[in-house]
C-alpha cells in the first residue's frame, strides 16, 4: 500500500515496478511520473531495474533501420518515377 503525505505519494517497490514500463515509454501522467522518480531516487534495487530496462529498450531502438540493397533502392526509385509519370500524364489529359 502506498503512503500519501504532503501531496506526494510514496510508492512501494511493487507499485513502482508495475509503473516502470509506462514510465520508460513516457506514457505516465506527470503526477505518476513524479511518484516513480521519487521512488527511484531512494530505492537502489528499483533504480538498477530501471537502468537495465532503459538500456534494453535503447538497444531495441537501434534496430530501427535495415540496410537497403542497391537492387531494392533501384526498384523503389523506379516505382516513384512511374508514380510521377502517371501523375504527369493525368495532369496533361
Amino acid at each position, binding site marked *: 500500500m502506498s503512503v500519501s503525505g504532503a501531496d506526494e505519494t510514496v510508492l512501494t517497490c511493487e507499485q513502482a515496478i508495475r509503473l516502470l514500463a509506462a514510465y520508460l515509454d513516457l506514457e505516465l501522467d506527470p503526477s505518476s511520473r513524479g511518484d516513480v522518480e521519487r521512488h527511484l531516487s531512494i530505492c537502489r534495487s528499483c533504480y*538498477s531495474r530501471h537502468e*537495465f530496462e532503459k*538500456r*534494453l529498450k535503447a538497444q531495441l531502438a537501434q534496430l530501427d533501420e535495415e540496410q537497403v540493397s542497391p537492387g531494392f533502392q533501384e526498384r*523503389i526509385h523506379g*516505382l516513384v518515377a512511374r508514380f510521377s509519370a502517371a501523375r504527369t500524364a493525368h495532369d496533361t489529359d
Partner: protein
Amino acid sequence: MRQMSSLTTTPEHVDSSEPAPWFGEEVQRLLPKLLATAVRLTRNSTEAEDLVADTLVKAWGRLDTLRDRAALHGWLSRILTNTFVSGRRSGSSRTERSFDELAEDEEGKSFSLFERLHQPFLLWQANPEQQFLDRLLREDLVRAIDALPDVYRVVVLLVDVQGFAYQEVADSLSIPIGTVRSRLARGRSLLQEALWKHAVDAGLEPGSDARSSR
C-alpha cells in the same frame, strides 16, 4: 524517440503542387526504417521488400490527403503495418486461430530478465545484468523479436523499435489502448525469456564457463 501525432495523422488535403520530387526524396530517406519494420514483421527479406513496395503504392494513391509532410514516416508506417496485419487476418483459415484471437489466449507468468540476473548481495562488486547487456548482440535481439508471435511482435516493433506512442499504435491497429499495453507487456516478457533461453543454451548466462569465450 517518440513520434507523437505522426502515426495517426488525420488525413487532410496537403499542398500537392509538386508531390513527386519531395515524396521520392523522403521515401529514399525513410527506406531503411520502413524496411526495418517490414523485415521484422515478415521475417523474410523478399516479402519485406514487397510489403514496402505495396505500402508505397497505397500511399501514393492517397498522398494528397496527408496533412503534414513531417508526419510521413508515421503515416507510411501505419499503412505498412495495416497492410501486414490485414494480410495476416485475411489469411487465417477457419481452423487457424485469428491474429487477434491468439493474443487473448496467451497466458503465462511474466518473465523478467532483471529478476533472473540481479544479485543484490554483490552490491558494487559486480553487475551481472549490465554484463548481460554488454554481451547482447544485434543478432540476439533480432532472433528474439523474430520469435515473437505476430500479435506481440507488431506492438513491440512499433513501440520499442520505432518509438510510437501507445495511442498511436492503438489507433493504427484499431484496438483499445489497454490491449496495446497488455500485448506490449506480454511481448516484452516473451522477448526477455527468449534472450535468456538463448543465453542459457549458448552457455553465456552470468556465471557460466563459456562467458569469456564470446
